[in-house]
């Protein structure tokens, strides 16, 4: 268990660092999470090459999303996505009922306003992973009550 917590701690320190940086550069109270999102993007992009190495070629987009929900998620969060929904037109909703970065600090509405900070990295991670698989997307997250989290993936078709 101790080796799992290292990643969680590093993640929360990266967020603290990014917040500290934006505070010193522009002095405003506005929170800039694009740095964290970018870190996630780069990590997702690189890890995808490794994870898909032993995997047969993906049939279609849905097949790729299923991979994200199962193997990709298990690799990073030690569990699978609890629910995947799609409208078959490029919108996918991934629901995690006990999101790893949120389970540690709240179980309800306390700290709800800070939740966006802790999902930015994961949004980047999904976007980066999909970008490497040649799927351009916009990933947003939605947190309604604490340990559960929904990720909306909008695939950008050209």
């Amino acid at each position: 268990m101790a080796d799992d917590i290292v990643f969680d701690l590093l993640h929360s320190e990266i967020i603290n660092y990014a917040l500290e940086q934006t505070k010193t550069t522009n002095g405003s109270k506005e929170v800039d999470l694009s740095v964290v999102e970018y870190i996630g993007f780069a990590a997702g992009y690189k890890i995808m090459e490794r994870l898909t190495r032993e995997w047969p070629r993906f049939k279609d987009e849905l097949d790729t999303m299923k991979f994200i929900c199962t193997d990709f998620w298990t690799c990073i969060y030690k569990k699978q996505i609890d629910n995947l929904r799609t409208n078959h037109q490029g919108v996918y909703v991934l629901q995690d009922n006990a999101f790893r970065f949120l389970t540690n600090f709240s179980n309800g509405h306390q700290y709800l306003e800070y939740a966006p900070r802790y999902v930015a990295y994961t949004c980047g991670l999904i976007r980066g992973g999909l970008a490497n698989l040649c799927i351009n997307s916009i990933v947003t997250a939605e947190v309604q009550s604490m340990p559960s989290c929904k990720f909306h993936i909008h695939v950008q078709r050209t």
Partner: protein
Amino acid sequence: MAVCVAVIGKDNSPLYIGGIGNDTSTDNELSRQWLVHTALDALEERLSTTNTSNTNSSANTARTDLRDLYLGLLYSTDTHKIYGYVTNTRIKLVLVTSSTSPSGSNIRDAEVRTALRRLHALYADAICNPFHLPGDQITSQKFDKQVKSLMLNNV
């Protein structure tokens, strides 16, 4: 024995082309590039048949074969044989063997498959290098050295 190995990016730009200079027709950069780039059309053709066979259920056996990342022999010329491999991330790996040398002419398919799988593993390691930006050429000397030794061992 492989005489030339290439890594081609998503947009068909060369990320890495390496060869061993003991073969007269592949000892310069230009002829290597030429050999590798002629393979790209064959690669695209294979990939497009993968996509169309999804709707065509009669090609069921062919489809299971095409879901493999290793695409096998793309084509052969008088002097060379060219093998292809496309990763899930659409990185194309090309391996060229010489059919004039005795070790290259009777190379088995399984050997090429393992060589390309190892090349894929090396590539996956290379892009985890923080000094490498995605889409740039691979300039890592470590990668170059490992690929060269892979080409030599693959006799």
